[in-house]
């Protein structure tokens, strides 16, 4: 325990040393006052005036989701200037770090953004590498833009009414999520204050009720839906659900009468004016109330909401009607119930909608509450709607948009990966065509792979895989797996799927040796160095030293993994041991000197030592090396390899030990040893045989799959006979 605590104290100190000269991050993981998210007087804790120039006073939080009104004292009159909102009050969209970027947003009364301020972010990329100012610059693009416009990352497309924003190179995921935060927050408030008019959807028409279904039948056809929240999803422990709600739409005569009974349905409908809708909620189980007690004082139910597309409908106390009981047979017993009346314009039961449970997640470490909501979609079945369900075009999720936009790039990348794989899969043919002096049949493919990897994958698409992704997975597997997060960077996603598959087929050497942009760059520099005559300065570390140092990368990996459990942020910082960010994402000249020096030093060293980073430091390589143990196809070996050291000498990876075994975890699959394997002038056992046969005047039969000349057997006739009768 003590050790852990000490480590916890020590690590930030270490990180501090490491980052002593790094640019100062203003809002990275800063501690925000807890009242910021909870106090009615939000602007006492947030610099509201900075996002609402000219404002002199602010209201308390109002609305659901909440916002504040900004006023200017104009003599005796108070003039409404606009609205200020805190992004985390409205959406929990995570950024690259998996945590939200806490943003304070100002919007004037016409719906134009007038101020954006980051209060807190957890983005490592903005801590190291990309200056935070670039995000501020990004945010400033919103100023003056109307919340109702179609604003996306990328180029403007006037014909599609699309306003484009310049992304931050190397922080695409962050800005995509930031755009979502800005537009969701702005829209949520603009809708509430009437800047954006609700979408008027055509109202549903219902066929009359014929037979009244049971509860089981309602569940079956989706007329009642269940929204369950587990305790761990809100940072609590406990058996059973934190919140277990069943809900449904009551205006539909069949569903309504099944739930309320005939009289109850008639009574409820007589309360509703045209365009008003009733839903019911019951809570068969759960640790908390879905009503809370906020509505008692403030009149607003702050835990449940209905959303239809971008319109949200909140309930106040006057929208509540008692639900006495559920008359459908087989309905679960419940401890809490409600009928809520949706009075907002635009809601239509013909279209899908969601019940949203607005929860709070309690952070285990800091006990601070963060906003977390949970929703469940509801759409009346075809048979309950006259004419069936209307066709609904759902907007693509953000990640899908990205995939569609980059379809060509993604397709090209996949083709590239498959082509290189195909080449490697036919390595046996390629190595047979090559020999000691003439290695181009293999290298042509490998070098092509390197060049494309460095140029296209690395520098252009910035799809260099990183150990931070591995760490993120570990955390996602343990806590919450969000596909959206991983899918938001398509090339990285595709690359990782490919890497995981190939690691188990061929081992990590295929990615590391053939496709890793940095590894490729590193070895390419080594080859170029040799080409320009630096060969005499090129060297390998003595084998005993190498065998010790190669373990360092594992230590680095496990170190990072361990640190990540204490602080993902710190682990991300320490992951700067990878020069990838400096090399590809940011540019070696764009970073502060310690980073540039580190990356340049490694690349410089690469000219003289083959892949020094890959061999000794790379935590990503280490993480892939371990599963490589379970690869399906290794490289071929001969019995003589145990004593013959010919390959080992030429092995650039120093992966062949004294007994001739290839350490597949270290092997870069350069295939040099495989070229020798079939080369009857280079492979000693093969050369010996060649010489013997030549001397003995025996023919040189073709070399078989095991790397030997096909043996010449004298077949005795007797044996042949025996074989025939057997």
């Amino acid at each position, binding site marked *: 325990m003590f050790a852990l605590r000490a480590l916890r104290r020590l690590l930030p100190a270490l990180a501090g040393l490491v980052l002593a000269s790094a640019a100062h991050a203003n809002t990275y993981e800063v501690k925000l006052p807890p009242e910021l998210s909870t106090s009615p007087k939000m602007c006492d804790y947030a610099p509201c005036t900075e996002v609402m120039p000219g404002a002199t006073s602010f209201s308390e939080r109002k609305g659901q989701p909440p916002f504040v009104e900004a006023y200017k004292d104009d003599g005796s009159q108070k003039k409404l200037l606009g609205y200020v909102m805190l992004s985390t009050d409205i959406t929990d969209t995570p950024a690259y770090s998996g945590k939200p970027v806490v943003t304070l947003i100002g919007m004037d009364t016409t719906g134009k953004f007038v101020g954006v301020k980051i209060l807190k972010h957890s983005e490592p990329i903005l801590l190291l590498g990309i200056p935070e100012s670039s995000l501020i610059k990004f945010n400033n693009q919103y100023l003056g833009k109307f919340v109702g416009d179609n604003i996306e990352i990328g180029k403007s497309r006037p014909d599609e009414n699309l306003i484009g924003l310049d992304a931050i190179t190397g922080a695409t995921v962050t800005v995509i999520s930031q755009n979502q935060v800005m537009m969701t927050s702005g829209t949520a408030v603009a809708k509430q204050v009437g800047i954006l008019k609700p979408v008027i959807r055509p109202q549903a028409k219902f066929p009359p009720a014929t037979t009244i279904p049971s509860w089981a039948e309602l569940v079956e056809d989706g007329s009642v839906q269940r929204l369950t929240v587990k305790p761990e999803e809100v940072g609590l422990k406990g058996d059973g659900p934190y919140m277990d709600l069943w809900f449904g739409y009551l205006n539909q005569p069949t569903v309504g009468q099944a739930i309320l009974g005939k009289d109850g349905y008639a*009574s409820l409908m007589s309360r509703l004016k045209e365009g008003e809708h009733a839903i019911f909620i019951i809570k068969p189980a759960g640790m908390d109330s879905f009503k809370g007690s906020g509505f008692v004082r403030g009149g607003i139910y702050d835990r449940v909401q209905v959303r239809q597309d971008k319109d949200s409908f909140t309930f106040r106390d006057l929208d509540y009607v*008692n639900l006495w009981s559920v008359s459908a047979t087989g309905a679960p017993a419940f401890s809490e119930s409600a009928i809520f009346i949706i009075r907002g314009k635009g809601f239509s039961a013909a279209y899908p909608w969601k019940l949203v449970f607005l929860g709070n997640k309690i952070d285990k470490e800091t006990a601070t509450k963060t906003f977390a909501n949970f929703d469940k979609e509801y759409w009346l079945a075809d048979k309950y709607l006259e004419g069936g369900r209307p066709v609904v075009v759902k907007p693509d999720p953000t990640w899908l948009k990205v995939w569609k936009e980059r379809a060509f790039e993604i397709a090209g990348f996949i083709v590239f990966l498959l082509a290189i794989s195909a080449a490697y899969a036919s390595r046996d043919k390629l190595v047979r065509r090559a020999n000691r002096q003439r290695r181009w049949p293999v290298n042509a493919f490998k070098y092509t792979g390197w060049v494309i990897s460095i140029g296209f994958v690395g520098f252009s698409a910035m799809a260099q895989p990183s150990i931070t992704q591995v760490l993120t997975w570990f955390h996602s597997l343990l806590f919450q797996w969000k596909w959206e997060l991983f899918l938001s960077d398509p090339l990285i996603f595709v690359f990782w799927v490919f890497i995981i598959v190939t690691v188990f087929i061929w081992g990590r050497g295929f990615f590391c040796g053939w496709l890793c942009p940095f590894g490729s760059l590193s070895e390419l520099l080594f080859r170029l160095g040799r080409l320009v005559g630096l060969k005499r300065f090129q060297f390998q570390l003595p084998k005993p030293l190498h065998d010790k140092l190669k373990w360092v990368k594992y230590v680095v990996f496990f170190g990072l993994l361990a640190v990540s459990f204490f602080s993902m942020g710190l682990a991300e910082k320490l992951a700067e041991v990878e020069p990838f960010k400096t090399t590809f994402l940011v540019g070696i000249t764009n970073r502060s000197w310690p980073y540039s020096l580190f990356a340049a030093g490694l690349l410089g060293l690469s000219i003289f030592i083959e892949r020094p980073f890959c061999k000794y430091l790379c935590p990503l390589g280490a993480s892939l090396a371990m599963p490589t143990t379970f690869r399906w196809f290794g490289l071929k070996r001969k019995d003589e390899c145990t004593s013959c050291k010919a390959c080992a000498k030429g092995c650039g990876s120093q992966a062949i030990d004294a007994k001739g075994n290839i350490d597949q975890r270290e092997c870069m699959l350069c295939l040099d040893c495989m070229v020798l394997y079939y080369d009857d002038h280079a492979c000693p056992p093969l050369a010996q045989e060649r010489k013997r046969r030549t001397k003995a005047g025996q023919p040189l039969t073709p070399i078989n799959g095991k790397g030997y000349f096909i043996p010449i057997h004298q077949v005795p006739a007797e044996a042949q006979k025996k074989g025939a009768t057997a």
Partner: protein
Amino acid sequence: MSIEDIKHDDASPVPARRRFLNSAALAGLAGAGLSVGLSACKQEAAAPAAGAPAAAPAAHGAGEYGKYEVPPGQLDEYYSFSSGGHSGEVRIYGMPSGRLFKRIPVFNMDCLVGWGITNESKAIIGTKPDGSLKYHTGDTHHVHQSYVDGMYDGKYMFVNDKIHGRLARIRMDTMETDKITELPNVQGFHGTFPDKRDPVDEKINHTTRVFCGSEFSIPLPNDGNDMNDPTKYHSLFTCVDSESMEVRWQVLIDGNCDLVATSFDGKLAATNQYNTEMGAHYQDMMSSERDACLFFNVARIEEAVKAGKTKTYGSSKVPVVDGTKAANQDPKTALTCYVPIPKNPHGVNASPDGKYFVCSGKLSPTASVIQLDLVLKWFDGDLKDPRDAVVGEPEIGLGPLHTGFDNKGNAYTTLFLDSQIVKWNVEAAIQSFKGDKNAKVVLDRVDVQYQPGHGFTSMGETKAPDGKYFLSDNKFSKDRFLPVGPLHPETAQLIDISGDKMKVVADHAVYSEPHDSIIVKRELIKTRQVYNLDDFPNAIKDPKESGVERKGNKVTVKMVSQAPAFSLPEFTVKKGDEVTIILTNLDKVEDLTHGFAIPKYDINFIVNPQETKSVTFKADKPGVYWCYCTNFCHALHLEMRSRMIVEK
């Protein structure tokens, strides 16, 4: 030994009841197979209980009665609207829990809400020329709601004041009294019932009239003449318009009126009469063997009123038609029909199938079943004797008073003297009356504690009773509750009538003195959550309108309340001013009610969300008076004050 075998003559019922109450005799009776009021399981439980008297029944009880309790977070299945007797109010309970939700001040004063204090409530109650209340007392007996198609429509509830002869209407959306009408020339206005549809116009299938009986006969007009000649005393039967609450007409009758019932077809109203003798002293009132149930032909009465066959009494302009026997000899033109009923009957109740009225005997151990189409036949001249309309008259026990009905054709009658509820079958009673000796009339009896007055079933006064509960409003509680001094609460006992056997499942203590109630399914009641600002012509809709306006010595103080403040932190008036304070509660949040009290000026009232109320008083005491919010509203409730400064 079957139930019918327990004959009830004048002497037997008391020992019979004692037998039931006597646990020592219980085991022996159980052996004899007598199961009246006792389920088989109870008998089994009772026998070993002799050794361990307390523990076993208690353990047995928890599970057995659990389903009649309402756990936290759950809601009652029914409303029970109950009169408050001489408290002058109406009460709302939840059933089956018996929890008291609200007391609606009607004829009484209530300093919590300011009923009888605010100008608005005074205007409803009625004032003397000097602005003070005309009456401070009232005696509510009967509560009934308005109908649509034989079912409660949740619009109005009507309740009588027996002391001063007034009818009050409660609007069901706010559950507050909105009109009070004083009936002319009557005393002892006891029974009342709204009609259920129009007797002539088929389309009017809802309540438009309320009928009111007068129990005490008086000289007409009661202005000091004929005071010592009881033969000149009369009772009037009154019809009030349910919308305007104006008195439409009255009927002069022989005898008096007790309870009132109306038919589902709207054609008939009836009142039972216990004093056809017109005696002034009680021994005179009991002299006849038969009194009557008096039927009114509503359509004919209204024709007569239209035809001007009316007179008026005293200063009243209400047309009065003659419903006496002498004036209604020919059935074909008669306005009234006197159906003879044994000895001082009490209670007349309409069966849910619309066919019968049941009149209880009170001093006779019988209940009389009157077939309504036979009464109409009499009015057509096709039935010789009104008594022939009585089609059943079972002996059911001693002191039968009021009858409720279930959905299986059974009647439940309170037996005051027997202190029992008796369950009997209406059709069987009719068969038995015809001479069928095998007809099984009485089905079950259950003891209640003690001496039931009114009793009623859930939804029993509609065309669709549900046969789930019977509530027995007992007149005495004696030992049933923790003692609270000489004045005891009454016992309202809930009886589960859904099975073959009735089962007392709860004792609810109620403050004196409920007479009658109705048990209404919760989904039929639709209330408002807050008021509508526009409902009040004097509403102060904007805090900016707050201030003090003076016209001579008449001062109007306009104020709004918004938690936690009144819009005027102080206001100044002069000694001798007539001050009117108008207060609008601008809070919109449900349940956010404010109070307004002025020390030493005897003023307190509440304003509900979006409601406006006013008070007028003479500022006769100079000084500083801290007006404060009396109804808890906010964390800063204590700070919610205003200073009234009365200058010398």
